């Protein structure tokens, strides 16, 4: 752990925390516009968080230590995961923990905590949400691992730092490998952040909700922490897709200008992707729960296809 790594960690985490609520709002805004509504202000995400942090927190009388720990743990797990994914600057020296499998299992840890939180309050909605979340995750997990295995195989590195570096130096965005990989990575964003057609982030209707169901009984600062960690997770997954398909703009050496440029370029790339996600969400209806595996299979076959194409070449 040298100074550069620490600086990288602080910068990356701060940047992720700063821009994540903005991206959430961009998607909301796009969806609202498509539906003919005005939509929230682009900074509304920050106002919401500030409001929630100021509010009183309620705990269920049935709840145990899971409800107390989970909000903090969920955010800190994602912040540690954020160290693995450089957004604007790839330092020379890799972190000792940089490993794509560690990243994946950190996501699993977050999911486990939230699923237990859903069961903790003895609410039927929580149980429903957590049952659905775990069932879906049982199917998406092999897909995720194969997608990332394809990534490792194509890019030849176990750390995401190395993967981005290779993407930047060797693979042009129009190469078939990158195009093929972008499809499953996009589907992963949709699934992992609970968006239409898998889950609907706006609804609180028991027929459709998955993620919201588990969080139904959280409030105040705990809800703020969960919303923030959800936004961070979305930004991290978006960063994986963005920095592989359009790696331009990432700083390779440390200088104030390169960092500012990298930040600005990432903000631009992220906003464009958010608009695409918003349009994608608006174009689809929520899928029936038991048909969702078919959607995952698309991602699975695309990543297998990537591997096979690489084998052929």
């Amino acid at each position, binding site marked *: 752990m040298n100074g550069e790594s620490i600086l990288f960690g602080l910068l990356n985490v701060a940047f992720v925390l700063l821009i994540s609520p903005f991206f959430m709002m961009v998607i909301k805004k796009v969806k609202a516009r498509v539906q003919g509504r005005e939509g929230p202000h682009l900074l509304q995400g920050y106002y919401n968080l500030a409001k929630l942090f*100021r509010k009183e927190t309620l705990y269920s*009388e*049935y709840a*145990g230590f899971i409800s107390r720990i989970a909000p903090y743990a969920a955010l*800190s797990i994602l912040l540690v995961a954020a160290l693995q994914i450089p957004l604007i600057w790839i330092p020379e020296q890799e972190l000792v923990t940089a490993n794509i499998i560690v990243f994946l299992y950190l996501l699993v840890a977050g999911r*486990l905590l939230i699923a237990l939180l859903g069961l903790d309050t003895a609410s039927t909605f929580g*149980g429903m949400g957590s049952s659905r979340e775990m069932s879906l995750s049982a199917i998406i997990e092999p897909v995720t691992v194969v997608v990332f*295995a394809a990534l490792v195989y194509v890019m030849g590195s*176990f750390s995401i730092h190395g993967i981005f570096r290779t993407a930047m130096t060797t693979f042009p965005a129009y190469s078939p490998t990158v195009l093929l990989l972008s499809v499953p990575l996009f589907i992963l964003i949709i699934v992992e952040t609970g968006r239409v057609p898998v889950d609907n982030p706006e609804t609180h209707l028991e027929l459709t909700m998955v993620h919201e169901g588990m969080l139904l009984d959280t409030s105040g600062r705990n809800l703020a922490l969960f919303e923030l960690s959800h936004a961070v997770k979305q930004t991290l997954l978006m960063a994986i897709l963005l920095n592989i398909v359009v790696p331009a703009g990432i700083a390779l050496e440390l200088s104030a200008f390169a960092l500012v440029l990298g930040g600005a370029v990432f903000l631009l790339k992220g906003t464009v992707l958010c608009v695409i996600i918003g349009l994608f969400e608006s174009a689809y209806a929520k899928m029936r729960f*038991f048909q969702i595996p078919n959607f995952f299979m698309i991602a699975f076959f695309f990543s297998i296809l990537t591997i096979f194409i690489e084998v052929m070449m």
Partner: protein
Amino acid sequence: MSELFLFIVLLYTLSGVIPLCIRKKRIWSVSSIIMCGGGILLTLFSLPCLLPSSAKTILFQGEWVTFPITIGIDRLSAVFCILLGILSLSVALYTPGYLDRMHGNRRKYVVSGFIPLFLLSMLLVILAGTTFAFLVFWELMAILSFFLVLTEFEEEKTRYASLFYLAMTQLSTVFVFLGILLIRMVTGSWEYPALLSGNDPLIFLSFLCLFFGIAIKSGVIPFHKWLPHAHPAAPSPVSALMSGMMISTALYALFRVVTGFYTPGVVYGFLILAFGCLTAVLGVMYALKEQDLKGLLAYSSIDNTGIILIGTGLWAVFSAFGYPALALMALAGAVFHAISHGLFKGLLFLTAGSVCQAAGTRNIDEMGGILVRMPWTGGFFFIGVLSIASIPPFSGFIGELLILQSLIGGLSELSPLLQIVMVVVLSLFSLTGALTVTTFVKAFGLTFLALPRSEGAKKAREVPWPMYAGPAVLAGVSAGLGIFSGQIFSFLGYPGLLPDLLVLFLLLLGTTILVYAAVWSYASRKTRITRTWDCGMMAPSSRMEYTGSGFTEPVVRFFGALYRTRIFSTREYLDPHQCLYKSGTGGIRLMKYFEECLYLPIARRIDRYASLVSSLQNGDVDRYVLYVFCTVLVLILILGWSA
């Protein structure tokens, strides 16, 4: 060295014999103290043998030349000895409290006496230095565990389980016996062979026999059917040992056989890999839908066996194709996972045993709300859950990480055909991992969280401290093993296999504290305890909660083809046009595939064959005289012919 070892054996024997001979009240606490000593000494004794510089040490040499019995320790057996030592310690702490609350009187002495002897028999299997000694101790282990399973013999289910177990475990011994005889035919000695190779079909046959023998013992599908019956039927400390240690002992035998006896071959590798994938995926699928808490843990042992088999199979495949680095990584993952599985499965079985005893049921659907009532037990169970769900940086994660790394590494290195195999194994492996998480969210969430769903669960109370001190030891070791895994591997002489999880742990801890501090200092601190949101109606009762069956229903439906679920319904109507509904029945049946399609047909065939044989034996003296006469006649004819 040798004296110390004999002293340890003496301690184990003593703590086994004392409760069998002396019928004094709570004599088992004396025996437990001796066993604690034995466990600690064994761990300390084996630690130096782990060092990369240590060679095989002979601890005991039998005098009998025809059937030599040698006992020795090397690095592989030292690893498992340490596991056995730690498990002995924690089971010794746990057992007295469990026995105090168990019903029945005489059986308590038997249980507390047989547990140390059972442990001793496993220790001797691990340390056996000749195939003959291995066979003897293997059979000893089987018989002792059979009696332990039979403890609660009044229950019909237990009798069925133990008979099933006896049949299967004897089958396992038969296979091991055959394998050992075949090796003896090839090498001409009872010593462990070294890297047999060649085209002799006997060599492959001996491997098959040994593999099947070990597979039956470690619950490899399709030889697993006894395991989910026998492990839960035994008292909890015994279940912990059977799942934590006996499976590990069988896996030790697998590592010994696969890595030591034979030159790694592609066929061996693929055979193990195929069984491993089948076992891992089906094991966790069955675990997922299980409603019996201890049964769920037993099935999950099967799935972990599968994961270890995958690692071992990958070792053989990579070695055969000449990738020693990947092979080492896979094998390190498999051995590490065997050890950590022993630890966390022991932990889970012990804590689950406390819960089942306190709640008076093993059915997950009748539990709930245990965490508030038994906070310590629940907390340690949670650590076990984090380990088994392979959450970094707990110990269960390390094995999976190493095996995944070697799989993905193999994907990049091997030839196209093998790459396809790697992709298939990779997806099955990660499916297993994900389903394990789901299974244990169910096991923890529905047992420990929310509201109690039965009177028994409502009345559950925390156990006395030694009963969670035992699990606490395992929880501590399990977490420590994961956090310091990088250091442990460098200490053992394999640096650089995996990222440093100590740093990850410190980062996680530091970030959590920082987040907490930030929220505490800047956000509102107002907190209120209130009722769960009830849609404006009445307080939610436990009847409104999700049950275990409901929780896993979506997965059962996704994988309906594998579970072979049949939904059936019958309806009766009042009128001939079938409009006015009168009554009906409906249900969901999960087919017990292996029992109905594999075990029962074989059993029926054996039965038929046996009835044919038994008609020859009708007890009629005249008929026996006839048999003797015929035999003599045939003998005379044959001898006359050959002369």
